[in-house]
C-alpha cells in the first residue's frame, strides 16, 4: 500500500492503495466516482475512458502510480452542471439505450473534439472505434458528435 495525492475533477484527494491498482478501481471503489465504468479490464471496450490532462485514456490499464501530477477528469467532472456541449448533444439526440458505455463514449468524444473541432465522418469513426456500444447506438453517437461540433466551441 502507498499514499497517492490525486487531482481528480479539480479536487486533490488522498488514497492509500496498492500502487498497481488501476485508476478505474481507485475512482470507483475508493473515491466513489462510479460514473466511469468497468467493461473489459483490458482496454478493449472504452467504457472506462477518462481524461488524463487533455487526453482520453483507458483507466482500467492505468496504474494509480503512473498518474503523478497530472489532472484526471471523469464524467462527473466534465462540466459542473451537465451542460458540456457533448453532454447536451447526447441529451438532444437521446443517444443511449442501456446507457452503460455512454460515459466512456462521451469522455472519448469530448477529448477528440478538443483536438479536432471540425471532424469528418471518417475521422469520427476512427476516433471512436475503440468504444464498443453493445446496444448499437453508433449512428446516434456520430450524429451527436457532429451536432456538438457544429454548435459550439468544445
Amino acid at each position, binding site marked *: 500500500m502507498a499514499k497517492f495525492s490525486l487531482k481528480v475533477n479539480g479536487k486533490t484527494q488522498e488514497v492509500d492503495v496498492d500502487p498497481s491498482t*488501476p485508476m478505474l478501481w481507485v475512482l470507483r471503489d475508493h473515491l*466513489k466516482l462510479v460514473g466511469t465504468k468497468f467493461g*473489459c479490464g483490458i482496454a478493449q471496450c472504452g467504457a472506462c475512458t477518462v481524461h488524463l490532462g487533455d487526453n482520453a485514456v483507458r483507466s482500467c490499464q492505468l496504474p494509480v502510480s503512473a498518474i503523478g501530477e497530472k489532472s484526471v477528469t471523469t464524467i462527473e467532472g466534465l462540466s459542473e452542471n*451537465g451542460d458540456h456541449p457533448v453532454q447536451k448533444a447526447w441529451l438532444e439526440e437521446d443517444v443511449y439505450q*442501456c446507457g452503460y*458505455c455512454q460515459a466512456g463514449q462521451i469522455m472519448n468524444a469530448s477529448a477528440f473534439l478538443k483536438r479536432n473541432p471540425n471532424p469528418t465522418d471518417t475521422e469520427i469513426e476512427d476516433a471512436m472505434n475503440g468504444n464498443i456500444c*453493445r446496444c*448499437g447506438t453508433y449512428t446516434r*453517437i456520430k450524429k451527436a458528435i457532429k451536432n456538438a461540433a457544429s454548435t459550439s466551441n468544445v
Partner: protein
Amino acid sequence: MTLIKTTYNRRSFLKSSTLAGGGMILGFNWLASCKPTPEQVKNMPKEWFDINGFLKIGDNGMVTIMSPNPEIGQNVKTSMPMIIADELGVDWKDVIVEQAPLNTDIFQRQLAGGSQSIRAGWSGLRMAGATARHMLVAAAADAWQVDTSEITVDNGVISHGASNNSAGFGDMASKAATMPVPEEVQLKETSDFSIIGTDKRNVDGPNLVTGKPLFGIDIQEEGMMIAMIVHPPAFGLTYKSMDADAIKSMPGIKDVFPIDVYPDSVEKQWSDGGAINKLVAIVGESTWQCMQAKKALKVEWETSSSLESTEGHDEALTKLLNTSSKEPARKDGDVAGAFKKAAQIIERTYSAPFLAHNTMEPMNFYADVNGERALLNGPIQTPEFLEKTLASRLELPVDKIDIKMTRMGGGFGRRLYGTFGVEAAVISQKMQTPIKLVYTREDDMTQGTYRPTYKVKYKAGLDSEGNLIAWHVKGAGSNDDLLFENRFPAGAVDNYLAEKFSLESVVTTGAWRAPRSNFVAGAEQAFIDEVAEAAGKDPIEFRLELFDRAIKDPVGEPEKNDYDPERYAGVLKLVREKSGWEGSQKNGTSRGVSAYYCHNSYVAQVLDLNNDSKSPKVNKVWCAVDCGIVINPMAAKNQIEGGIIDGIGHASYSEMTFKDGQPQHKNFDTYRLIRHKEAPKKIESYFVDNGIDPTGLGEPSLPPIIGALANALYQSTGQRHYNQPFITEKSVIG
C-alpha cells in the same frame, strides 16, 4: 370512449398503503447519491398523496409514476409511464418516474423479455392512469357539486365549463386519494392520445450523461464487501479442491470458500438455467484486491461429463439434419410427390455459432442476507423468479425477501437467468455481511447461457413457371429445436414439411435477443432470395406472391398460421416504396431485402452496401415496422437501429467456439463485436400507422437484417453466405 372494468387486478389500484415495505419510498441509500437538481428540489411538493400503486400526486400537481418493469435499455422506464400519464391527463413535464421494486401484490409480469412489456402491460397501465383520473374527477365533482360527466381533464387541469370551476391535480390530490376506486373506468380513444405517439426523451438521460450511480455495479453501501467468483474453466468440469490459505493472507482479502449455490434441496425456477452448482467465492475489501487474489488462486477441477468441442457440435448437428423425425412439426400436402414433379430443386444448409450475450455491464448483484431477511438489489430481468429461488435456497418466507431493480447495462436475455443473484445471496449469508458480487468480463463471457449453435437445411421445389410448390425445412440446435413451424412460408406453400431436432449439450444455453428468430430469419430470408433468383423473379415480388396466396387461400387451417399475411405484405410494400426498390442495384451499391415476423410484429428491411472501398460497407438501411401503436417514436427508432446494428455485427463478426469444453474467447480482444466503423452510415425507420394495440419492438428488427445483409453481399461479391459469422467466409464487410 372504451368502458373497461377494473378487474385487471384491483389490488393494483388500491392505495399504496398496502405496499410491502413502503414501496414508494426509496429504501436504499445509494440512490441518495443521485442528488436532485436545485430546480427539482424547488418543484418538489410538500406532501404526496397515494392514488394507487402506480402513482402518487403532490400538492403542487407533480405526479410520481412507478415504472413497474426492469429497464435493460429497451426504454420501458420512459414508455410505460408515458402510457399511464396519457390516460391520467397530466402534463409530461410534471411527471417524475421512479423504478418500482418487485411487488407482486401490485404489479403484474415485472419481467423484461420476449419484447412483451408494452404489449402485456398496455391495458393495466392505461387502467392505472384512467382510474386515477376518474378519482380526481370524482373529487372535483364532489367539491363543486356537479356531475362527473361534465368535467374535463387536460394537461393536469380539471375543469367544469358551466360553473367556471377549474383546479390543478395538486388541489384535488388529497381528496382524490379518499375517493372509492371505481368499478369501471373509461379509457381514451386512441385518437385522443396526447403523450403516446410523441417523442419523449429518456427519463434517465440527465443522470446517464453525468455519470450518476444508476446500475447494479454502481451500488455502494455502508459495510459492503466485494465478492468475486471462480467458476470451472470448461463445461464438463466441476470443483474438486483448492489452496485457499495461499491467498487468504493477501491484502484486503477477508475469506475464500467453496459455495454450493444449488444444493439438491433447492427448488429451481426456469430462470436458474445455466446455473453452475459449485463455485469458489472470494470476499475482500476492494475489487482490485479480489481480482489479484482470483488470479493467484489455484483450484483443482475434476471431469464430471464430456468435454465438448466446436467440431463435435458441428458434426452432431449435421448428423441430426441427415435423419428424419418420426413426427414432423408440421406437414401439409405431399412434399415428396411435389419434389418429384418439380422443375427445379434448391437445397442449402445454413449454420451459426454459439454467442455470448456480452452485456457491457458484467453480471453483478448486491445482497444483504442474515437469518431474518434478505435485501437484494441489482440488474435482473426476472426478479419474481429470483425471489422464488431465494425463498427456497435461503429458507426464508417470500415476505422477508426484498428485491429492487437497478437500471441494467444491457440484457439481451442474459439477465433472465439470475443465478448471479442467488450466488450473491449465498455469499452474503455465509459472510453475514452485505456484499456486492462482481463478475470479471472473463467470468461473464465464459459462464455459458449462450445463444445455442444452430444448423438448418432448406429444400425448395419450383415448377416450370417459377412457382414455389414444395418446401422442406429441417432445423437443429444445441438444447433447442430451433423452428417455428407455423410461421411463413407455412400457409403459403401447398406441400410443406418442417422437422426439428435438439442436440443435447453440456454447454449451457438460454434466450438471446430474439431467440431462434435471430438465426432462422436470416437463413430463411437468404434462402428465399436464392429461390426467387432461381424462379427468375424479383425477390420482393416473389415474397408478395406467397403472401397473396396466404391471404386468399391459406394452406392448412388459417388459425394455425401464426402470422397475418396482410400485415407482412404491408411492411414489404412500405419498404419497397421508401427505399425506391424499383430498378434497384444502382451503380456503386448493392442491395438486399428481407422480411420477418416475430414478437407479434412485422419488419421488412432493405440494406444497401457501398462497393467503393476494398470491402463492402453498409451504407444505408431502410426499415418498415408494423408493431401497432408506437408509444415513443424517438425511442422506438432507437430500438430498431440497435437491433439492426446488433444483427449485422453478430452475423458478421461474432462467435464462441470450444475446445475440450473450454470457451475459446474470454474477452473483447478475440471476441469481436461490431464497432463504430462497421455500423451502417444511415438507418431510416418507418412505422405502419394502424391504431392496433402495441406489439413487440425490442427484438423484431434484429432477425431479418441478417438476411438482408447476406442478400446484399451476394449482389456485391457474387458469393452466397451460409455460415455465420460471415467473416469466416472470405468476403468481409467493414
